[in-house]
């Protein structure tokens, strides 16, 4: 379980570029829940994810992961509980390292690293099993450099890496946005399959309202650094993009003028 309470964060405090990114953001994600997060540009989606991961530290508020207060902890000390897939397909893996070395890095996520050999024989079966589930033939290319793979393949491997060891929450930051439509569909299908099979708790940020309603079991919309609505269960069933927009306008009394929310 992960709970964020009244998170506040302002970038460039005291400068003309002062930008309040989080303004009292609160959200609790229960064990096994798959939450999709939407919001227009500047709504605070990425900042919220970065705050949960520890890449930015909040000015005030509290983040609890599995009963541990992690509010002040840097990224690497949260990594054992928080797994992550980035938007940029090149960001989640090291192109200069081989596929097996990347997986070996991930299998020790959040654990102590010693002086024993990193790529161990006993990992191989697990690596091959999980890679073959991708149906990309990567299980035969363990020794290949990551840089030889396409963006979609690398994003699929990033996803595997994030799910190789247990985590309290999996953060997906628009992880299909930089891929072509076909590859994006493949990675999304893979995402839902892995989350379902491993019963993961996940938070997926997406730019597409359609995608947000199609996958997961709860949808949260952010606006100006706050949660504006939060729907799940019966309320969410059968909902369409235009219903979401209606909900948004009702909540805020605003017209949605961001085309990117309507598209996709």
């Amino acid at each position, binding site marked *: 379980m992960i709970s964020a309470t009244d998170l506040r964060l302002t970038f460039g405090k005291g400068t003309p570029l002062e930008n309040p990114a989080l303004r009292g953001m609160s959200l609790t994600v229960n064990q096994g829940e798959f939450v999709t997060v939407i919001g227009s540009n500047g709504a605070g989606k990425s900042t919220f994810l970065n705050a949960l991961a520890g*890449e930015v530290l909040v000015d005030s508020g509290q983040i609890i992961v599995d009963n541990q207060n992690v509010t002040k902890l840097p990224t*690497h000390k949260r*990594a054992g509980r928080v797994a992550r897939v980035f938007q940029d397909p090149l960001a989640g893996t090291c192109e200069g390292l081989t596929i097996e*070395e990347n997986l070996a890095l991930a299998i020790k996520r959040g654990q102590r*690293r010693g002086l024993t050999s990193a790529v161990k024989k006993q990992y191989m079966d697990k690596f091959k099993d999980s890679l073959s589930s991708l149906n990309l033939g990567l299980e035969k290319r363990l020794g290949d450099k990551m840089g030889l793979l396409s963006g979609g393949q690398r994003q699929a491997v990033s996803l595997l890496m994030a799910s190789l060891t247990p985590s309290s929450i999996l953060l997906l930051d628009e992880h299909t946005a930089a891929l072509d439509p076909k590859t994006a569909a493949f990675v999304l299908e893979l995402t839902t399959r892995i989350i379902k099979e491993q019963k993961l708790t996940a938070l997926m940020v997406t730019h597409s309202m359609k995608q947000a309603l199609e996958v997961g079991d709860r949808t949260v919309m952010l606006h100006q650094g706050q949660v504006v609505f939060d729907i799940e269960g019966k309320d969410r069933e059968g909902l369409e993009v235009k219903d979401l927009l209606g909900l948004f306008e009702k909540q805020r009394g605003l017209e949605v003028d961001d085309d990117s929310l309507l598209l996709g």
Partner: protein
Amino acid sequence: MLSNIALYGAIETGLIYGLVAFGIYLSFRVLDFPDLTVDGSFPLGAAVAAILIIDGWNPWLATGCAVMAGMAAGAVTALLNVKLKILNLLASILTMIALYSVNLRIMGRPNVALLTEETVLTPWYDLDLAFHQVPVLLFIIVVFVALILLWRFMKSETGLAMRATGANARMARAQGIATGAMIVLGVAVSNGLVGLAGALFAQSQGAADVTMGVGVIVIGLASLIGGEAVVTPSTVLRALIACVVGAIIYRLAIAFALNADFLGLQAQDLNLITAVLVTLAIVLPGVRTSIANRLTRSKA
């Protein structure tokens, strides 16, 4: 042409600069941390070893202390960068400048002679070898051991974490790697190797001098880049071998250039030749590819 003594001398210094190139590979290539501390940690290693040897210490123990001193210097640079957020290049320049004073303090004078002292080389002269072959033999062993240890380290969990830190720090943090600690460890080990090189250099040359570090970074880089041009560094092992090969080729090239009378070069031209060699080493791989491209195109 090159005399036997000059040839062995070039290989001897080449092996020492191979250790420097290991260090520079670690900072520049693995960690992507341009570190100029080496110009200070090389004479630091020499100074520490020389003073302790004169003090009657066991030469291997003195060399060990030189390694520790080098590591400490590297750690200072890395901490300036990681903790105080000083730009890596600038942090290393600050340490390098400070080390000039430190080295003078350690030696108490600009240079220390070791000609009559017992060094790590002394027992090896009892072997049935020519005097100019002895250092080559010993340094081959030292470089080989360092290469194997470094290679195993880079393949270890911690070594892999260090490589990830340099290649993709954001990803490394997300995997739970303390990137700051990795930078401190890596730059420390790098300068430890350079300290070792300085200590061995002082013992084989018979003196430690406060100015002996000038340009070490350029020679190390020349070795690294030159080696990479000859041995494609597709794996860690190949990259490490490239360091040694590059360093020896570099020293041989210098020795040939200085010995070729028709060129009319003299010892004071050393730095100019270095600059030309480094430029060639950087430019040549590109030229080679473009020629290869042109050849394949004309065939097709």
